[in-house]
């Protein structure tokens, strides 16, 4: 549907909205941005979460205490997390920003530079997700039978080897699940981060797909295009869900 500017007349235009969408360089750019953003956030959050969980799993005492100290960022709203990082990385006041400028000699300015803004939203989104991943990895590791690891230690496998040869493969279902959840999180729940921190800017450098739906629909009032973008996202998420459930079913069959 295409509406005239006053919303008086609607014309049915078949699939033109979709055709316009996929020939629009801005939309294609937004797809690339979303992919970069999603992959980097998931990678940072997963690797950091896995690392801390491995460390926490090695300790004998104080596991509940450690868990308590790492769990709470999950309760912070994405919008507030964005706000905290906006302050930390603010080019004029932020401590981390000053540290980056002085120690690394990088001309840090997320307000003007697209790349820096991207780094900022990635950090703000990943921070919150680390604790989510941590909980899953720790639970997954604790479910691995101790006897397996002890047997490997008897055979003279070093701790690193034990991790890569036993813990990591046995953790792969958890890893898969966490990756899917992280991708869903970065695609959809990070709206708050983008809206508080960059508003899609500078120059559309952090304009991810979900933000574009909002921007085109509610600020630009191009309802047809916004709806078409929603449909694209919907297809995407249904695909992810189906793939995940296929995988889970297969896992159950193997176990049985």
């Amino acid at each position, binding site marked *: 549907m295409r509406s005239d500017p006053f919303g008086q007349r609607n014309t049915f235009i078949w699939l033109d909205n979709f055709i316009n969408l996929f020939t629009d360089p801005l939309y294609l750019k937004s797809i690339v941005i979303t992919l970069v953003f999603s992959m980097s956030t998931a990678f940072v959050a997963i690797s*950091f979460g896995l*690392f*801390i969980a491995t*460390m926490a799993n*090695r*300790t004998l005492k104080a596991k509940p205490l*450690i*868990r*308590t*100290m790492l*769990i*709470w*960022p*999950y*309760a*912070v*709203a*994405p*919008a*507030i997390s964005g*706000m*905290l*990082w*906006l*302050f*930390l990385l603010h080019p*004029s*006041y932020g*401590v981390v920003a*000053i540290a980056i400028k002085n120690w690394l000699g990088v001309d840090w300015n997320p*307000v003007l530079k697209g790349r820096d803004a991207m780094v900022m939203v990635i950090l703000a989104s990943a*921070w919150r997700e*680390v604790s989510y991943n941590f*909980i*899953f990895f720790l*639970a997954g590791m604790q479910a691995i039978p101790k006897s397996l690891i*002890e047997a490997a*230690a*008897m055979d003279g496998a070093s*701790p690193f080897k034990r991790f890569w040869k036993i813990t990591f493969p046995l953790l792969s279902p*958890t890893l898969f*699940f966490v990756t899917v959840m992280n991708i*869903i999180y970065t695609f*959809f*729940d990070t*709206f*708050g981060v983008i*809206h*508080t921190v960059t508003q899609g800017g500078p120059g559309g450098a952090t304009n991810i797909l*979900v933000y574009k*739906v909002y921007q085109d*629909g*509610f600020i630009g009032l191009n309802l047809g295009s*916004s*709806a078409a973008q*929603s449909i694209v*996202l*919907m297809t995407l998420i*249904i695909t992810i*869900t189906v793939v995940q459930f296929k995988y889970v079913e297969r896992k159950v069959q193997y176990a049985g």
Partner: protein
Amino acid sequence: MVEKTPILDALTYIFLMLGIVVVGFPIIYTFVAATLSIEEVSKVPMPLIPGDQFWVNIQEAWTRGDLGTQLFNSFIMATGITFGKIVVSMIGAFSIVYFDYRFRTVAFVAVFCTLMLPVEVRILPTYEMAANLFGPLQPVWDILHLNGMVSWIAGHDIEVALEWSLLDSYTGLILPLVASATCTFLFRQFFLTVPEELCEAAKMDGASAMMFLRKILLPLSKTNIAALVVIEFVYGWNQYLWPLLITTNPKMTTAVIGLQHLIPSPEDVPEWNIALAGALIVMLPPILVVLFMQRWFVKGLVDPEK
């Protein structure tokens, strides 16, 4: 572990400490910033020792952002969503598991399809719906020429439009977020593990279906409900996009949205101390819920995966 590796153990603890500090740094820093006065917070670099302006900043943020009303709204929204979700999905799962009716599979597939469909994807139709609940009925109304009929009955021309708007209301904030396939799934999974004998025994004792739900299933699913309460409360509290769209009146908006007005823009006086004090207030309730109900929280998060 089995062997002694003192160096590696020491490294483990060091890395762990580093990890905790890295994760905790933003919050410590926020706290420090919230205790400083405006002159100190604008210093480059900002001092890392807490100042004495904590209460002043908290009060300022409270009054300027009207946080009292907004926290109350957030609370209503979060509890409403939590309660609604649990009730709806429990009854839904109960119907899918225990009753045999014609469109059961259809209902299940429909629930399955919406499993991970977040509000973010369906903002436009949901907004249209909320703006006018009778919207979908309007074409029917027009086709039947009911307007003509009404004016004929009334004897003069009147335009009747069906309208019932949920914008700027608690119902509007809560209702679109209540339907939840994830919770329905969790309850379904759990109901499937409840032994059939219980249901048969209840029937034999003459219990009706609702009685079975209330007297047997409800007590059995207590732990599941506790876990869901924590997760859904945090989810409801942290909603951003939906309250942003549906509320225009500052008196009706939630605290997370209201907080954004405290962030200083480049032209303003950089009162980050007040903005961050506000942030501290707003993020405290969900953090407390998570920390005090940690056991349920972890259980609720990890269990659906299985």
